[in-house]
């Protein structure tokens, strides 16, 4: 059930004030005074009217830094890419609008609704002001809201010292949007791009992954991995194994083509491939499977899972957790960042479930998974 405070509720014990950090640019609606928030966050915090197709408790609030000149990166699949047509202000991110709101009232509302919130996250963009502004917003959040805070970082803007500063300011977890799971793919989609030069390199991303892991500790760092950018199943499974071995969470995302982006005409992964990758990751994370336990054809497609008993796979599919949204946890370890309808339309099959799938959902999932075809 969605729950919100009565709009007449008075703010009594919080007052958030921002001072402008960029003199001379004060007429623009830029961070840190302004941020974008996801549509689901805007609905939950009462900035926007609306509802979810299925009712569930939602408390994962996502913020995105906002700059007039946008993100300096030009990733082939991203809605915010520099060379994607249209004004930056009008661009969608993960295919829906991200409302622009003032940071101070946003923090006030998060404070008011703190008991309902499960995870907060600031997404940086590649911009020279991003680090400083993320620190400013972090301070405001940490001082007013106890919900754990993650930062989805922009590695080109960071180094060890800056990561240590995030930690010192109270950031709980660090996310790194690796997205492409091989160096070749990363380079083709993110480095060697029409408006390149923003410093997106595989080496820099992994440097930040390693530094973050050292500073924040085990299971406090996650890498986003996207299914459908041109990688093979083997590439994904190998990456999951590598990350889990380093006590880093692999978070799974389903590529969802952004209209007019360079990959706008690329189809998303089939639902069967997606479900099988979800299951494989779950087996690696939760059941101790390794790369050697999976078999692939000459194209790198998953063909079989070596299991002591098919019942183990059936049980893994039946508990439903494998098919839930990957995201940073809430204060008690529950799903915290659940991004409903983030990579699929409400009328489509849930790619990842922001809640534990129901019995009916599981029947559908098992048809989509075609587990028998994977264990013969």
């Amino acid at each position, binding site marked *: 059930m*969605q729950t919100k405070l009565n709009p007449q509720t008075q703010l009594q014990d919080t007052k958030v004030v921002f001072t402008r950090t960029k003199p001379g640019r004060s007429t623009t609606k830029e961070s840190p005074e302004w941020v974008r928030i996801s549509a689901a966050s805007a609905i939950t915090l*009462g900035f926007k009217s*609306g509802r979810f197709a299925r009712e569930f408790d939602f408390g994962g609030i996502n913020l995105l830094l906002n700059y007039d000149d946008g993100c300096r990166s030009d990733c082939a699949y991203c809605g915010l890419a520099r060379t994607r047509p249209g004004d930056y202000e009008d661009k969608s991110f993960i295919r829906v609008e991200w409302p622009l709101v003032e940071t101070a009232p946003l923090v006030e509302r998060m404070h008011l609704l703190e008991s309902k919130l499960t995870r907060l996250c600031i997404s940086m963009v590649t911009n020279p002001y991003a680090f400083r502004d993320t620190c400013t917003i972090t301070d405001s959040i940490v001082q007013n809201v106890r919900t754990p805070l993650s930062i989805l970082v922009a590695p080109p803007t960071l180094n060890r010292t800056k990561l240590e500063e995030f930690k010192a300011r109270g950031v709980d977890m660090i996310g790194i949007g690796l997205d492409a799971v091989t160096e070749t793919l990363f380079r083709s989609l993110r480095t060697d791009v029409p408006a390149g030069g923003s410093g997106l390199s595989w080496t820099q991303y992994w440097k930040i992954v390693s530094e973050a892991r050292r500073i924040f500790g085990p299971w406090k760092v996650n890498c986003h991995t996207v299914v459908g950018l041109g990688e093979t199943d083997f590439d994904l499974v190998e990456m999951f194994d590598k990350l889990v071995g380093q006590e880093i969470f692999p978070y799974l995302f389903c590529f969802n083509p952004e209209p007019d982006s360079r990959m706008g005409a690329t189809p998303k992964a089939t639902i069967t491939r997606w479900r099988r990758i979800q299951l494989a990751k779950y087996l690696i994370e939760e059941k101790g499977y390794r790369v050697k336990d999976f078999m692939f054809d000459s194209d790198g497609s998953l063909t079989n899972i070596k299991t002591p008993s098919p019942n183990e796979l059936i049980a893994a599919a039946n508990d439903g957790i494998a098919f839930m949204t990957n995201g940073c946890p809430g204060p008690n370890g529950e799903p915290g960042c659940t991004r409903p309808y983030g990579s699929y*339309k*409400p*009328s489509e099959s849930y790619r990842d479930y922001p809640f534990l799938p129901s019995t009916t959902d599981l029947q559908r999932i098992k048809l989509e998974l075609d587990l028998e075809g994977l264990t013969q």
Partner: protein
Amino acid sequence: MYKKVSGYQLRDDLFYDQNNNYWIEKDTADTVKIGIDELGLDISGTISSLSLPLPPQHVEKGEEMGALEAEKFVGPLIAPLSGTVIEVNSEVIDGVRSLYEAPYETWIVRMSLKDQGELDHLVAPSGSLESFKMRVERYRKAGILSW
């Protein structure tokens, strides 16, 4: 004709289906135009598309006659009256912008009524203001409206 009620525009010369947030306008002696009222648009979030029946199609009151999809929501469009859908507004099939620009001028379907008494089940223009206020309050309490 237009009134501002609880922050929303309302036309006080129309019939309303308060369960499904439609306005209904008598068109001819036995036909009506049906549209989505401003509150119905708001509670759905940002609507991206509508699916409507291929006319002529008979529908019974309370049955699904189409679907509405928004950024985080999808749900059925329930027929407010029994009759035959004789026309759909192709403009809203092609794009929903006009729904927001002029919600009370942008009908979605035209229906011929099975029975003139069908309108008796709706909120009559005379009772629309109070009924509308109650609807807004209901959605506000459910946390669906912005504040």
